[in-house]
């Protein structure tokens, strides 16, 4: 949308992508050290990406709206877990179980998001720490709810869910693959395809939509857009409609998909993916959220998100209700996080009642930063790239720990260290980039050629 005559500075690019590049190097170094087969890595990776990508994409809206990483997605996940528990109690199995839980997540997570948003509006500038602490606070309430309220005040008929089959408290681990109400794979198992087929379908869909959008809609009579969009006679914007212009903008993506399909034809490459089976419905959900993130930015609401994110003062002066816009961003993010947690749980097949939600904010935040996002700017691409890089490291780190240090635990420590480290690094870089006083050349601005040397 923005065409700028920016020239490419390698140094700037390097600095802006420092976090991502460090991680790429780390990953490249770690894969051989782990001595794992690529088939295994890809297999693990496919399930981890399908589990986590939705959660990471849920972070984008608040970042765009200038609220940083929404660590309060933890609270959305709690909402989802409440919904899932009720579904298990009512013994709704499979996809219908997940769908029920997803539907109930909307009011629950939406309400929590509203409360979070209200609070964050009162602590502008401290949203990240605010949402993180809020997550810990909410965890206390969550424990009261699950240890006492469920069973005592809200009856739980399904005694598989309570501690020792008693009346009080939900057990520590819920097996989602047990009994008639099993919801494990409620989405994943609906439709699974080998990697190759999934790739072909994805490429086909992307290319098809590219072709569609290249057709000039205004030429087709019954598809005419609103009256305002009618080009008038002295339209200046010819290039916007020309096929060549559209082709130029869409070509890179098309090339990536075609190239991917072509490379996949090489038997050795295809072999590495032989164990991967893509859960298509989950993948479609992820793609839809990605699409939503793009499309919303082209609406009036999206424009408000971006405006508020860049300058609350200016947005306010333009008559935008800043607080309301921020509230909407947080509510949406919290609901998406709830859905993301459902996807995660149905894929995993087991719910650690008191731990499953605890560190998702941290890991999702770290992942999106690894992808090259900052706490003020994030895109779908960065979220997906971050998801891939971060989880490659997660898969290989224990093995590297065994091979290099003789202890798998060191690998585990390392990945926790990396998660926090990445967030800290991103914050430091952000701080460096936004120093209050940037050196300015006043003499230049005043039109004086060069600074005279101070007299000795």
């Amino acid at each position, binding site marked *: 949308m923005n065409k700028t005559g920016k020239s490419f500075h390698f140094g700037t690019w390097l600095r802006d992508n420092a976090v991502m590049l460090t991680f790429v190097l780390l990953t490249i170094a770690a894969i051989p050290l782990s001595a794992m087969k690529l088939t295994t890595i890809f297999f693990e990776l496919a399930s981890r990406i399908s589990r986590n990508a939705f959660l990471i994409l849920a972070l984008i809206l608040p970042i765009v709206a200038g609220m940083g990483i929404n660590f309060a997605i933890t609270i959305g996940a709690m909402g989802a877990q409440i919904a899932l528990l009720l579904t298990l109690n009512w013994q709704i199995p499979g996809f219908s179980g997940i769908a029920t839980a997803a539907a109930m997540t909307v009011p629950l997570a939406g309400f929590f998001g509203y409360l979070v948003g209200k609070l964050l509006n009162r602590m502008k500038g401290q949203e990240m720490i605010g949402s993180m602490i809020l997550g810990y606070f909410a965890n206390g309430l969550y424990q009261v709810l699950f240890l006492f309220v469920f069973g005592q005040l809200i009856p739980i008929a399904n005694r598989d869910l309570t501690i020792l089959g008693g009346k009080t408290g939900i057990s520590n681990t819920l097996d989602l693959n047990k009994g008639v109400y099993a919801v494990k794979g409620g989405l994943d198992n609906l439709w699974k395809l080998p990697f190759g087929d999934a790739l072909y379908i994805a490429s086909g869909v992307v290319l098809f939509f590219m072709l569609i959008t290249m057709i000039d809609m205004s030429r087709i009579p019954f598809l005419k857009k609103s009256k305002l969009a009618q080009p008038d006679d002295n339209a200046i914007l010819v290039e916007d409609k020309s096929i060549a212009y559209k082709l130029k903008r869409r070509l890179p993506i098309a090339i990536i998909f075609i190239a991917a399909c072509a490379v996949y034809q090489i038997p050795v490459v295809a072999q590495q993916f032989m164990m991967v089976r893509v859960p298509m419905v989950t993948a479609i959900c992820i793609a839809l959220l990605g699409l939503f993130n793009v499309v*919303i930015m082209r609406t*009036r609401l999206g424009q408000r998100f971006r405006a508020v994110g860049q300058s609350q003062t200016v947005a306010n002066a333009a008559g935008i209700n800043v607080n309301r816009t921020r509230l909407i961003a947080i509510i949406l993010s919290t609901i998406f996080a709830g859905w993301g947690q459902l996807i995660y749980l149905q894929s995993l097949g087991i719910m650690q009642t008191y731990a499953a939600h605890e560190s998702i904010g941290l890991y999702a935040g770290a992942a999106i930063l690894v992808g090259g996002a900052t706490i003020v700017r994030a895109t779908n691409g960065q979220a997906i790239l971050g998801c891939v890089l971060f989880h490659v490291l997660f898969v290989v780190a224990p093995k590297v720990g065994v091979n290099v240090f003789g202890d798998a635990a060191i690998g585990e420590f390392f990945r926790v260290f990396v998660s926090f480290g990445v967030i800290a690094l991103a914050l430091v870089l952000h701080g460096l980039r936004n120093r209050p006083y940037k050196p300015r050349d006043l003499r230049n601005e005043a039109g004086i050629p060069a600074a005279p040397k101070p007299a000795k």
Partner: protein
Amino acid sequence: MGAECVLEFKNITKRYGTNTVLHDVSLSVKPGEIHALLGENGAGKSTLMNVLFGMPVIHESGGFSGEVFIDGNSVVVMSPHDAMAKGIGMVHQEFMLIPGFSITENIKLNREITHRNPVSAVLGDNLELMDMPAMRRDARKALDSVGMKSLDELALVKGLPVGYMQFVEIAREIDKTGIKILVFDEPTAVLTESEAKLLMEVMRSIAESGIAIIFITHRLDEVLTVADTVTVLRDGKLAATRQVQETSLIELASLMIGRTGSESVVDLPPREEALTGKIALKANDLFVEMPGEMVKGASFEVREGEIFGIGGLAGQGKVGIPNGILGTFPASGQVELFGEPLPLNDVRATLSKGVAMLSEDRRGVGLLLDQSIEDNIVFSAMQVHRRFLKGLLPRVKAAPPGKVLRSAVWALSVVLVLAGFFGLTRYQLAFNRSAAVKAYIAFQKQATAVVGEADIIIEDTASSADDVVLPSGGAAAALEEEEAEPVVSVFLSEKAADTLTPGEKILLFFANSAWAFLAAGLLLAAAMYAYQCMIKGSVTLKDTSGIRALSKQMIHDLDIRCTGSGQLVGTLSGGNQQKVCIARVLALTPKFLFVSEPTRGIDIGAKRLVLETLVRLNREQKLTIVMVSSELLELRSICDRIAIVAGGKVAGVFEPNANDADIGLAMSGITPERSGAV
């Protein structure tokens, strides 16, 4: 006047508490007229515009009296959005643009052109998709009409020259439908000369299309070039309204500044001896990057023993000068103090050379509000000159070999600590891999197996433990201690030392004495630290009695009204806080004093006292003072000379009794060529 005026203010009076900031101001603007609004800071221009835009600050402080008419109808504007709806637009002084947005997006911000779609039909028009081509067309049209024909409407605002942003702002206001009145708030402050010229043309063409323009400025020449009518405000009162053809630069300047009579704030005692004329401070080509108060090449000289005033309008750079010289904001240029070059950007060095500053920002950098009066008074002196401190440890002189020896001892302590850590950790790894240890561990496993069998035997036969077959010698002893001690150290202490290699013997030594090494290293370091503190005298306590004596003296001298020197500064009144600031500066025993806006926000009685104090310091202690103030009257009453700063440069230096018109011209950046300038 009826409907021929698009905007009319009638008898507007606005009070903040007891302070009247607008007094019975009336003015009217016709469609297509460019009406300039002229006045010093605090003359009431902003308040008048706040009334026009219905800013919350007006309504929250009790509203105003008088009436505003738009198109002949009496209106009360309740909020800025309301103003927008009534057709009043504003071109802001600070740009209200979003840097990361394209020009089009900025122009159409919150007024986006959108299409309906099925989702938005259900969930509200916020989800309508933007129609970028239509928005671009509108933006293009608006840009063309402000003369920016070559500017790409899709360029990001971020990369634009500052001047262009001003035009984007104007384009945005023009693009709003139904705009009747457009307010330009000092639009030329950031423009180059040619851009300013273009702006004048654009303003003319906007006015010709029937929009009324209110042009707030302090540049008199621009008023004469572009405006039709000019209204001068002074001290919240209407000074005059003139047709531009009927007035002149000189008249406007003196209208803007003019004071009735020459009442002085304080009585000036005469000097005992005349000034020597020696130069105390010489600044040449000084640049200071103080946001909002940029100094761009100021040069001036201050004579020893004088009170030198620096005046000028807000944002022109007068406050930047003392801040730059002191080093609180990045500065460049040459500054000489009493003939010596003064290092810039180094507050500590400047302070230690005897320069002190009374900051304009009392609450921000001036005072520690939750500390006592005495602590505030001595704070800077303690930090800069290390006064009011008593040594806790006896001071010693450094021994002759000094630095080299001390460095060596430091190094030794570091080595000892490292050796300790090495002994604690590293050797174990090494031993785990050594052949001797492997053999031992293998042996031990074997022994355990035997013991295990033996245990069963014991149970079965109920015989004594002596019957158990054990491996012979030291290994047996080791076995008994096995559970209490880690494998390796048992082995090292009990197993015959003669089976070890020399390398292993060294490791053994480190292993056994690791804790001794660590302790020795840490003790040595602690002792060295204490010794260095004694040399430097850096372990100190406050000299409470000395501080109290000085505080008492200051409280008496400056007449600080308080319950005692221990009272918290935050609980004092504004005037008394300012006196504490002065006391603190005096505790530095300065040779050269900068005073920045010393009377801001304090009442008239306290003002007089502060000024009198400054004069007394000047006369009695021969202290050279540079006083920066927005209040010309104050400067005129105590200064020997007054420099007027405009556009970051010194526009002229005047005698305190200089002509109003000259000072007014200097304030708008025109250096007067007539008499009066020194």
